[in-house]
């Protein structure tokens, strides 16, 4: 499978009020054709900077960014027809209706005549905006504006979509609609790089994720790999009907258990197993044979959110 997006030691420094701000620090990223890559990170981590560099809007201070093997900066003119960029805010021209807005950008991609009319119709239908063709762009709801943004980037049928927080500020219905639309695009074989703060949706949509903090990529891989990486300690939640403190002491003395902590008023024990432990049945066995009435035994639920919280420190520059 060929690589659609690649960054090699990508570094970006900003000069803010005489101070140098390191937005990206040797970022190495590889996204293959057809991947839907979720880009996660705290505010100010460097997500938008990365996307802007890939969209040819910014020049890196150091390193290299490639789209379909074309180098950003040197071959930007070849890159632009291949990408579709949705910024974090909707850029609306005043006094323009939806159809004009799409025709305007179609003309910018040198799509003219009957072909332009046909393509605009197609994307309007794909994004369910056909009934809004004569509506003023700035009168649309935020959800519709985001759909219009997606319609705009589909006009020239780009290979790569760069979406900077497309779901931010949307209501639940609009978010779901956008997610469904993105799933459609994924099915169409587009390579998607999407940054978002809504992690469950990213987990649902993306086959790969990258976690960035302070300009450094701290993880890149599938969602499962992210989950596995943070669930290495193996945590179980255990509860007994009575004498919880004694049960906790018993478990602390048991081989294979790294630690036991009491949680909350209902005396649930958070039991951390040693890394090498594979078979966990010994915990239930030990408690029952010691006369305790076991009321709960469950594994800690690890998802993308947990992974994100464990992998990042929440430090911004």
């Amino acid at each position, binding site marked *: 499978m060929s690589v659609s997006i690649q960054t090699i030691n990508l570094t970006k420094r*900003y*000069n803010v009020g005489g101070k140098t701000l390191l937005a990206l620090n040797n970022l190495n990223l590889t996204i293959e054709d057809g991947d839907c890559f979720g880009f996660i990170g705290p505010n100010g981590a460097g997500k938008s900077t990365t996307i*802007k560099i890939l*969209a*040819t*809007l*910014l*020049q890196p201070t150091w390193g290299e960014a490639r789209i379909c093997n074309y180098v950003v900066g040197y071959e930007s*003119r070849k890159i*632009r*027809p291949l*990408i579709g*960029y949705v*910024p974090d*805010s*909707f*850029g*609306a*021209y*005043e*006094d*323009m*209706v*939806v*159809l*004009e807005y799409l*025709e*305007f*950008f*179609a*003309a*910018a*991609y*040198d799509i*003219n005549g009957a072909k332009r009319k046909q393509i605009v119709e197609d994307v309007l239908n794909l994004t369910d905006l056909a009934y*809004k*063709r*004569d*509506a*003023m762009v700035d*009168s649309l709801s935020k959800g519709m504006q985001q759909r219009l943004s997606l319609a*705009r980037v589909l006009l020239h049928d780009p290979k790569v979509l760069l979406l900077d927080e497309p779901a931010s500020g949307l209501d639940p219905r609009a978010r779901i609609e956008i997610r469904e639309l993105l799933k459609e695009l994924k099915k169409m074989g587009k390579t998607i790089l999407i940054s978002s703060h809504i992690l469950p949706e990213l987990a649902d949509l993306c086959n790969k994720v990258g976690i960035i903090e302070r300009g450094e990529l701290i993880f890149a891989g599938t969602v499962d790999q992210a989950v596995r990486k943070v669930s290495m300690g193996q945590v179980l939640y255990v509860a007994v009907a009575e004498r919880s403190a004694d049960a906790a002491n018993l478990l602390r003395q048991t081989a294979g258990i790294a630690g036991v902590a009491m949680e909350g008023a209902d005396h649930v024990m958070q039991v951390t197993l040693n890394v090498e432990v594979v078979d966990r049945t010994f915990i239930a066995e030990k408690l029952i044979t010691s006369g305790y009435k076991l009321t709960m035994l469950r594994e800690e639920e690890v998802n993308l959110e947990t992974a994100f919280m464990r992998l990042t420190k929440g430090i911004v520059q």
Partner: protein
Amino acid sequence: MSTMSEMLKLGPTNPILLRVVTAGGRRLRHAFTRWAYLGALILVLLVALLASSQGQQSLSELAKAAMQVFKYISYMQLGMICLLAPVFCAAAITQERDSRTYMILLATPLTNAQIVLGSLFSRLYYIVALLLSGVPVFAITLFYGGVTASNIATSFAIALSTTFFTGSLAIAIAVFRLGSGKTVFWFYVFNAIYLVAIYLADTMYLRGTTGGTTWLTGIHPFLALDSIVDPSGYRTPEPETMSDRFLLMKWYLAYPARSYIALTTLASFLLVIPSAIVLRRIAQRTEVGIYEYFRGIIMRGKEAKGRKARTVWNNPVAWREGATRAGFSGRGLTRWMMILIGVAVALVVLWLYHSRILTVRETRQVVVALIMVEFSVALLVATNTSASAVTRERESQTLDLLLVTPITSRYYIWGKLRGLVSFMIPFVAVPTLTILLIILYDIVASVASATVREWVVWPETLVTLPVILTVLMSWACMLGLQLSLKWSRTLVAVMASLGVLAGACSVLGVCGFAMAVHGSWFGIVVSAFSPFTVVCVLVDPWVFAPGSFGSEGFFIEGSTNYSAPLMVGRVLLLISTFVSAGAYCLLVWTMYRSMVRNFDMIIRRQHS
């Protein structure tokens, strides 16, 4: 204690003012403005001192010289205030666009008066600081005698009251939601028109009849200042000589400077007090400004529902500038209104000429005045529109969307220029139509009466005028575009463009009109390169190029309208106009090339 604290919050401890005062000192832009202001003041002082102290021996001569110096720096101070006050107060008008902070302020326990006065004083703070920094410069004139502390205090009071009025007007516009960001531009234009029109009315018509100050002196800052700095040349009448007037009028005419200060201060209070009363009521009642409210009534909600889409040109950038701006937007409406008024006035002039109420010479003068007004407005609109062309895209974040498309800088700038020029074409069409009507009338009248009539405007003007106007309009558009690319904020770009345009036209105008008076072929050739001179000379060469076409001019020999020298002069004027148009085309092309070359670098630097 609580009442005292609330009272103090109206002024010295007002949180809005305190924020501006504490932050203002750190802003480099304001420091530069202060340095530039002081530098200009000191330069004028030094030049005036050197010029007026040469050969002065006696104390009385020195005192006279000091008065002259005081006059120059006072003019300079007031001129700078008139220039800077609208810029600094503009934020009050545009604050509504940043309504988040506005709404937060309204939600605090601050009273209406505290918010209004805080906003006003924070706008005025920079100007007052600027004025105060000039006090030592003015104090120098005291050493020579002739100038009294009272003179200086009055000069400062005129400047301060002007600033206070400008600030109050801006606050009232913001509170009553009478405008938007565009208002700043028109605020400036009307300010300039008011200052020039009243000054001309006083100096050209009224001053002649009274020999001194007039009833206009008390409502114009420069005339009021004139009465202080030039008491012998611009005399005020003695109260005793006006026994037929009632007391207030007598005082108003006898003390114009004080009247000006009192009137502007009173007007400022009249603007501020209602603003303070209705601030929250207006904010609660409606989310739209009065302009939008009336526009909504006219449009009857059509905009919200949408409308039929227009056909987008193959160059979308040109379409955006040329077609969408000309639609039923504020700018589009202004354009059509100007055009309709222009055509209506041209028809009235033609009727007056036909009815012989106006002679040929008078008709020519009226046509010159009409075309000059239309040309000035067109230049202002061209500069304003083009100066906001890139900045508005940057502010609405649509520029990024275009930059990721395959559109190149050459294509983008060419599209902008093409669109702007096509937007401006109707402005050029109106003066051309005026000329066409007059020329057609002359032709028809000549044929009907079978006599050779004196042309109001030479027929070749029908070709030269639209050509030169279009080229000059393109030059103004290119100038605005260049500064729009350079500056990231619309207001700064518009003000800078207007400043550069006014400066260039003034310098070229002074040289052009001086050369047009020159009595040889050379004067005609050179004056064709000055925008305003060439337009005036094309329409009325008899008045504006008297050295060449006047009764004793270079190209007049014999008395016929078609004498050989006159024809040579006309041909020379025609050729000079085309050469000038070519030169401006070259200038536009050079500016375009430079913009294309630097576009990526400037955009990239702004992004970084």
